[in-house]
């Protein structure tokens, strides 16, 4: 690492990364304290794969993304509690964590459901010739942040500070090491005595922004650790890779290049799809599923103030399991871009009509395992082209827009799918989520979901008096 000369001015502010430990598992533990010390795993949609592991499950060797049917035995042997993902709960707990961070500083940039960057001004001791005192102050703040988040939400977090986002990410790995030694996972990498050693030991593949593709090439060029990567000449990085990696290199050297709040790219596509709980062969069930996906996609468009011009629908048997396999899809170009639920459902069903094949040449029915809707040609609402020809019954008249607003408002107030279009299926079909009924339902399997403790009056945490 290019040696920092003592005359270099301290940064004006320090960037912190707050990273929840095993977030989904931690959420489950908050509301069921008996899980403390018990291995916890959370499964993806349809109870398919492991998407969250507590420390104990990790230690037992269960890999992230492992299919549940493959590690079921292993999990049973270690006495793990396994849950279906409860995104409603996780989303609300995430909001609470972020709000807690806001109580420290307004400069909070949420990065994912369980991570956020934040910025704090560098303590004045740094400018008064005592950087060590400044660093200790920042570490004390980091511990205070961890304490408050743990107290207010029950979620354990790592807090790591550094001059740049990339270094804060690197410091977070170091915080994990501290935790394993029984210390608080709170660290300030800036002016830390172990900084140089730690970055010299860090594999380049673990640096934020360096993917698998680049890490081997970088190793071959002599940039196999974080330190060595930072020492590569700019010209080499720019010519052999790209400016994105160059930014990472500068950030590793301590020069912030990434804004705290990276403005998200305007959405290009929107996909809503789900795998089925049970394979489905009849066009009626597929139609219901696609209507529901189209409705959800329409809601999201409206929420984000967008409209879409192309609607595609796809159905697939996937490539495993018995039976003939195929995938089919079709696209409809709408006469005018829209976010109208009715229009999008109509388009999706029209696609299904063209994409659906009931059985193969030998008369064996196709057993579809997944269906979805994809919207493209997405633009901000209000920029739609006026139609040259008849645009159909769902033209965005003020009445139609008011209908959509009323629909969204009712669903928000009374719960998702309180008001639905008939094509989405009867209420019993829609609610067949947790019951193991004999009849096939295309709703996804979520047999081990915990209650929505913080968003449903009828699913509150119960305490014995």
């Amino acid at each position: 690492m290019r040696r920092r000369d003592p005359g270099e001015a301290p940064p004006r502010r320090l960037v912190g990364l707050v990273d929840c430990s095993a977030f989904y598992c931690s959420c489950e533990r908050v509301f069921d304290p008996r899980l403390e010390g018990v291995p916890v795993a959370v499964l993806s949609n349809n109870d398919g794969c492991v998407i969250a592991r507590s420390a104990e499950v990790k230690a037992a060797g269960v890999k992230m993304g492992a299919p549940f049917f493959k590690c079921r035995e292993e999990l049973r042997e270690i006495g793990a509690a396994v849950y279906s993902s409860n995104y409603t709960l996780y989303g609300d707990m995430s909001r609470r964590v972020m709000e807690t961070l806001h109580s420290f500083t307004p400069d909070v940039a949420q990065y994912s459901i369980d991570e956020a960057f934040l910025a704090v001004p560098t303590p004045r001791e740094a400018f008064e010739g005592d950087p060590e005192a400044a660093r200790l102050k920042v570490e004390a703040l980091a511990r205070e942040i961890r304490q408050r988040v743990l107290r207010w939400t029950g979620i354990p977090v790592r807090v790591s500070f550094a001059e740049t986002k990339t270094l804060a990410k690197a410091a977070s790995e170091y915080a994990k090491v501290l935790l394993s030694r029984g210390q608080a996972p709170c660290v300030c990498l800036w002016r830390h005595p172990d900084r140089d050693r730690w970055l010299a030991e860090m594999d380049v593949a673990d640096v934020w922004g360096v993917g698998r593709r680049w890490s081997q090439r970088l190793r071959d060029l002599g940039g196999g650790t974080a330190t060595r990567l930072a020492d590569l000449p700019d010209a080499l990085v720019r010519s052999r890779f790209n400016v994105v990696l160059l930014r990472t290199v500068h950030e590793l050297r301590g020069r912030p290049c990434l804004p705290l709040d990276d403005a998200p790219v305007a959405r290009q596509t929107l996909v809503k799809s789900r795998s089925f709980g049970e394979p489905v062969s009849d066009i009626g069930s597929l139609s219901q599923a696609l209507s529901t996906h189209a409705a959800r996609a329409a809601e999201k468009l409206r929420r984000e103030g967008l409209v879409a011009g192309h609607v595609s629908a796809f159905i697939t048997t996937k490539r495993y399991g018995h039976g003939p396999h195929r995938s089919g899809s079709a696209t409809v170009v709408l006469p005018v871009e829209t976010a109208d639920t009715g229009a999008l459902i109509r388009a999706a069903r029209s696609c299904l009509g063209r994409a659906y094949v009931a059985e193969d040449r030998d008369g064996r029915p196709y057993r579809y395992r997944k269906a979805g809707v994809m919207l493209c040609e997405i633009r901000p609402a209000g920029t739609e082209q006026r139609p040259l020809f008849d645009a159909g019954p769902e033209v965005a008249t003020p009445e139609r827009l008011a209908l959509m607003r009323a629909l969204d408002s009712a669903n928000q107030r009374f719960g998702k799918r309180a008001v639905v279009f008939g094509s989405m299926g009867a209420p019993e079909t829609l609610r067949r989520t947790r019951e193991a009924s004999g009849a096939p339902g295309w709703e996804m399997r979520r047999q081990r979901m915990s209650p929505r403790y913080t968003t449903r009056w009828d699913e509150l945490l119960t305490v014995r008096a």
Partner: protein
Amino acid sequence: MRPSTHASRGEPGLHVVAIARAADVLPFDAIPVALCRVSAGFPSPAADYLDGQLDLHELLGVDAASCYFVRVEGESMTGERILDGDIVLVNRAVEPVSGSVVVACLDGELTLKRLVKDRAGVRLLPGNPGYPTIHVGREQDLVIWGVVTFSIHDHRMRAAVSRVARAA
């Protein structure tokens, strides 16, 4: 601050203080509206005495990240006027001092009791003579989940009938 100056946080000599986020300052629905239009009709004498609406969220502190609603099952706190089937608001941010009604986690089990800490040790008190005081031993694991701030009780006859029906 002159318009041409670019102020940044932490710059020595320039002190920028964040006061609040706009989203926190505006109440969620109580934005006062003028009671009458100035142009036409009878000007209301109340126009100068505008007030917001009573905001339950504000009174109870419901919106805080640390507040959770919890349902109560059981009779041990009836003397504290927390009854079976009530909902309590639990604030994890409040310091659990001796005398607080708390949701406590004792050896992994959640329970609603009054916390007492004194020279004699730590105890969890029920609010009903029919239930025992729990003395928390040194080897036991006690974590306070949160402090109860408010409780919600439905006084309508229907609720009383269903409680009686359950007891029968």
